[in-house]
């Protein structure tokens, strides 16, 4: 993951940027990206309904 991309992304969102942090963040983003590639083995995951937070407190009539 490109260091400039990370710095810009954080700055754009209003986070302070510490130079020493960037390699760690890059390492974790790379790991996530690399692991995401395993989704190739599960071609229809996009059809799954995501687990979402929609609890009883929101659906008042069920209480």
């Amino acid at each position, binding site marked *: 993951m490109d260091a400039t991309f990370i710095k810009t992304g*954080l700055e754009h969102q209003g986070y*302070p940027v510490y130079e020493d942090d960037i390699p*760690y*963040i890059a390492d974790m*983003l790379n790991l*996530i990206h690399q692991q995401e590639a395993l*989704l190739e083995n599960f071609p229809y995951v996009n059809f*799954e309904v995501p*687990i*979402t937070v929609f609890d009883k407190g929101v659906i008042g009539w069920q209480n």
Partner: protein
Amino acid sequence: MAELAFMPAAKLAPLIESKQLSPVELTRLMLERIDQYDGDIRAYITPLPEHALAQARLAEREIMSGIYKGALHGIPMGIKDNFYTKDIHTTNGSKLFMNFIPGQTATAAEKLLGAGGIMLGKLNMHELAAGSTGTNPFFGNTRNPWNLEYMPGGSSGGSAASLAAGLATLATGTDTFGSIRLPAAMCGVYGLKPTYGLVSTYGVFPTAWSMDTAGPMARSVADLAIMLNYMAGFDPNDPASLHVPMINYEADLKKDMSGIKIGVPTHYMEGLDADVEKLFQHAMETLNGLGAEIKEIEIPELTLSTFAGYATVTGEAATFHEEWLKSYAEDYSQDIRTFFLTGAMTMSPQYNRAQQIRRKMTQAFEQAFFNVDILLGPTIPIATPPYSEHWVDQNLEIVKRIMPFTAPINLTGVPSLAVPMGVDREGLPAGMQFIGKHLSEKKLLQVGATWEGTEPLRKTLAIK
């Protein structure tokens, strides 16, 4: 007297009920031990000697006047410092909340204390319940009582260390991606990560809402069952709280495990340190000898645990901490700050994809439980390491190693019972986890109690 400090609540309670043991004397013993040993171990952030003695005196008066509240009455316990405690500092292991004093007590802690539990103090933890080693630059690193050069694990490191050192009889923990189970493994104690929603997290600092669970930690399975009897139950203040019937978690502890079908996902046999692998093989043979039927099974969806775990935990944690990260970034340790900021740099589709994976993984677990009663794997793939001076790198590396072993449980919301499985060649404990279907805690405790009967910590690695 020291043996009282290591005696389980299940054995202390009858002594207290029959007035053979004074809660005040027991509490005083534990406080003396904290005074004597906790300078080195750092299991506590805020010891509460006066508060504890006042609670113990009250318990004693009640018991002497014939009011016995049950198995927790007069039992000393530590409360992890991310559980709110009314009028008592609750730091969440963080500089950010160093001066925070809540106006209420977390539901789960309130239930334990309301049953007569004696709060010895607030327990140390990896900062913001988001790390796996037990380092804490603000309140001191917790040390593993088995060897002070080694880490206790995290984030409930103070909870596990206090139990291993006899500085508490019981302790609370929280588990978002392994924080009860991992330190239980490294310190040789027992910990239960309950079904998501079984124990209220109201009044517990969130780390990642959809993964957070609160649960019991102890030195025996029976003590976990006692704690869960009080901690479990519906809480209208917790949107995720489950409406389930109250059951007696102690009821099946004396049943054996003959005929129990145990599935070992091949995922949990990959990437193990040599000692962990040997101890796990030995444990499977022992379980077989106890009458369990063990077979390897495939759950391919588990390969997605690291992606879904990171995307979910960092994403939700970054959301909770966004404003503080922007205004007080220097108040975070570098390992935790970078972990959370990683969540700020993941994309919405990645987070949502992780939630799709969670449904798929949960379905895969349900399918597996058609064929087996429980699943089994090492709690973590690594042997307990000594602390490194490069503690930021060390924590982030350990999180990377453990995530595929611990996160699937939180991603799917199923319960997992962490038990000791032996001692490695360095003399440090290692652990394994019994994983069950949703709300199968009673079954897990039954199997765990049988396993405990083999005295796993006495079986050191003669397999050198």
